[in-house]
């Protein structure tokens, strides 16, 4: 009863569905009476993470674990991986294909937006295997 878990599958290349998981979680967090500003940060960071999987990976899974202290979002994908995470974190740096950019994505803001909107961002990546992104946001601002 102390924890709620949700899981969403993300298909690579499916931009139509991108945003589905973050929209769903946003509704849930609103019902749980989380501070609206925190809900918005989580929705934004989840959406960026979803789009990253859609734009770069073959497929992925997004697991959300909610407890009264923190919201944990775990995104695991099967894909090319990120060779240089520090470089990828820079605003404006993007490896998105022209096709993805034509669709209005790939501005190179994804990871930096995620960092800006989560309390703890953890990224691990293995080349040609995939990437694991862990985002932790505390339910009370200022808590750690």
């Amino acid at each position, binding site marked *: *009863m*102390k924890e*709620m878990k949700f899981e969403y599958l993300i298909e690579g290349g499916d931009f139509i569905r991108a*945003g589905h998981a*973050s*929209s769903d979680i*946003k*509704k*849930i967090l*609103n*019902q*749980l*009476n*989380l501070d*609206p*500003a925190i*809900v*918005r940060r989580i*929705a*934004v960071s989840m*959406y*960026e993470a979803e789009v990253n999987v859609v734009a770069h990976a073959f497929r992925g899974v997004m697991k959300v674990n*909610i407890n*009264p202290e923190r919201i944990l979002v775990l995104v695991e994908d099967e894909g090319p991986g990120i060779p240089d995470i520090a470089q990828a974190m820079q605003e404006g740096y993007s490896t998105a294909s022209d096709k993805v950019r034509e669709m*209005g994505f790939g501005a190179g803001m994804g990871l930096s937006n995620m960092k800006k909107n989560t309390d703890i961002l953890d990224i691990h990546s293995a080349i040609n295997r995939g990437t694991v992104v862990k985002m932790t946001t505390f*339910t009370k601002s200022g808590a750690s």
Partner: protein
Amino acid sequence: MSSAFHHALKIEEEVCTGCTHCIQACPTEALRVKGGKARLIAERCVDCGECMRVCPVNAIKVEEDDFTKILDFEHRVAIVPSVFIGQFARNIATRKIYSGMLEEGFTHVYEAEHGSGILIDLINKYLADHPGTRPVISSFCPAIVRLIQVRFPSLVGNLMPFKAPLDLAAISFRKKLTEQEIPEKNVGVFYITPCAAKIAAVKSPVGEETSPFNGVINMNTLYSKVFSVIKREEKSFCIVPEKEQLLPEEMEWTLTGGEARHIHGRCLSIDGISNAIEFLERLENGTLGNFDFLEMRACDKSCAGGILSSTNRFLVSERLHKRAEQYYIDKGNGKIFNNKTITLYKDYVIANASLHDIEPRSIMKLDEDMVLAMKKMQKIQKIKGYLPGIDCAACGAPGCRALAEDVVQGRARTSDCVFVAIKVKGGETMSQVAEYTEEIWGRNRFKNMLPE
């Protein structure tokens, strides 16, 4: 204050037949049927009037001030929206409509949009001074303001902190009269409203302590009065010249695009409450591009489509666009004289134009306490699993999810679902099931049904 939830929409019990049209049309799920009548959950209602639009028996009315209330004052000012002029056919001159209003008892007629010129400058300045607040959302439509408070609490900080032109018009006109040594208590300022939301905004303002109005008059009521006086006394009545004219952009302010076209940067105009909800959802999810300003109105075709508008909204818009065109023709012929009252009081109006912080008041939270809210959510999921998922509304709630939530919040029982009552509660007799349904739909509802 906003915590009082004053609503302009009232359900007339004697008229309501307890159908499900309104409960399914409500964008905030604020209506339920109990005892055969529609009931309003006050804190959820945003006064948009969608229920009134769909009611097949006209059981939903707006609470309005009695017209004779204007007679309590020696000086009776009508603050009238330009869509009121749009109610009339084009061959009835604006002067004539004004004269008809004076004939009906007002001593002054002043158009609500006189305040919009000042507002344009205020909004543009606000955008320039607050580059970190994007998009700024217009606070013009009170139904949209309330919708954001209850359904999109994270966006209240994006609402522009200014009063509507009608408030600014009222503030300046009141100032003008009191400067003429007329005691404040002798001045009655009345807003002629095209919608329910504006009534609620006057009776329980959001972001301001008091409203500058003494009362609100239903636009439909005044339209009938003025139209009949024009028809009746076509020849005899004295036509008073228009004292002040609206600028063309002011005439079109309350139509779709009326605000956005004057604001710098990337702006959008969105009308219709379901369109606004779709847009606000995406905005909250962060899935929209960057916008500077969003004009949002709850009614299709904005105020021309207000629920108290008796003329078709497309015709109202047309008349106002034509009126704006006519302005330029008249100007060319030297027929325009613009000594605008409001510009004389510009500094005073600007000093009184700001709104306080608009507070979020989420209707979505299941409980103040997060742990309890989680428990409730799990129960809702479980109950929802039992329900048929056809959203028939036969339980009196707008859909299965709403019923599940009502059950958990202690407002309903699972057996209010007729399918659950028959199928799951197998131990209960059919007459018990019939009793449950009668509690929701009233004793008389099923009396004409004959047994086979």
